[in-house]
């Protein structure tokens, strides 16, 4: 049973994020090991495994990046364990520039302002990438999966950058 089936929904990038947490809580209750406290060892073990699977499924399905990666893995494309590098120079130059800007933000007169502008820029890029990703995942074109995989690879750099900006914002806001 795959994660979508477990959550009783079709395999699709479009997930109703208002329904997902409810289904999660419901499944959590149904599989909670405490419910099987008086059951056999076998029942307890099954409940623990099922409960862990529900947690894994929820964490994969709720974020668009891991959800897209999971959909590709169901189609036989494993991105999670790949070790190949990307060499798209213009994309990487942009990543380098953003990271340089972040590294030098302390020297700016108003670092939080610079960070928030950077955050907006990256969030916009992520937004348009996700829209493209959605289209490629729904497409039946021959190279759509390959294109989807390329966008997922790029998104990993963007989300990482975003989380680093957030860390920096937190550290600056502590004062």
């Amino acid at each position, binding site marked *: 049973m795959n994660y979508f089936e477990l959550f009783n929904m079709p395999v699709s990038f479009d997930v109703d994020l208002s329904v997902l947490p409810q289904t999660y809580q419901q499944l959590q209750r149904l599989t909670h090991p405490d419910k099987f406290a008086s059951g056999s060892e076998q029942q307890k073990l099954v409940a623990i495994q099922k409960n862990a699977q529900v947690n894994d499924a929820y964490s994969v399905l709720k974020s668009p990046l891991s959800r897209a990666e999971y959909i590709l893995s169901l189609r036989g494309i494993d991105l999670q364990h790949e070790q190949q590098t990307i*060499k798209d120079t213009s*994309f990487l130059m942009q*990543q*380098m520039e953003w990271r340089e800007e972040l590294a030098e933000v302390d020297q700016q007169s108003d670092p939080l302002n610079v960070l928030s502008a950077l955050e907006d820029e990256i969030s916009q890029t992520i937004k348009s990438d996700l829209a493209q990703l959605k289209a490629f995942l729904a497409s039946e074109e021959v190279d759509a999966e390959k294109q989807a995989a390329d966008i997922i690879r790029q998104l990993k750099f963007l989300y990482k950058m975003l989380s680093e900006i957030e860390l920096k914002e937190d550290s600056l806001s502590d004062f």
Partner: protein
Amino acid sequence: MAYSEKVIDHYENPRNVGGFDKNDPTIATGMVGAPACGDVMKLQLKIDANGIIEDAKFKTYGCGSAIASSSLVTEWVKGKSIDEATAISNMDIAEELALPPVKIHCSILAEDAIKAAVEDYKSRQK
């Protein structure tokens, strides 16, 4: 996860950090990224008329192993011909730095950075 002493040494005292003017015709630039971790690496080589690498500089945004891998290759490639440099494999790097299996992709990143820089050099020769 525990880093090896060599990784810590390169991480704390990275060799050859920085960059050269990418428009200088003797400079070759290799840019690579690892989607697995979102690390980005830029390696620049200064190559003389005989195809010998005179100098190398790097800039890496990533974990300690990625920084150590790139710092190490800048030391290794100096004085080598471009063919010798492209022969450096990620396993050599991983072994020297005693990288654990989950960090092997950092050494692949450094190997690919050398290859990307050499490709850039060759495309400029045409």
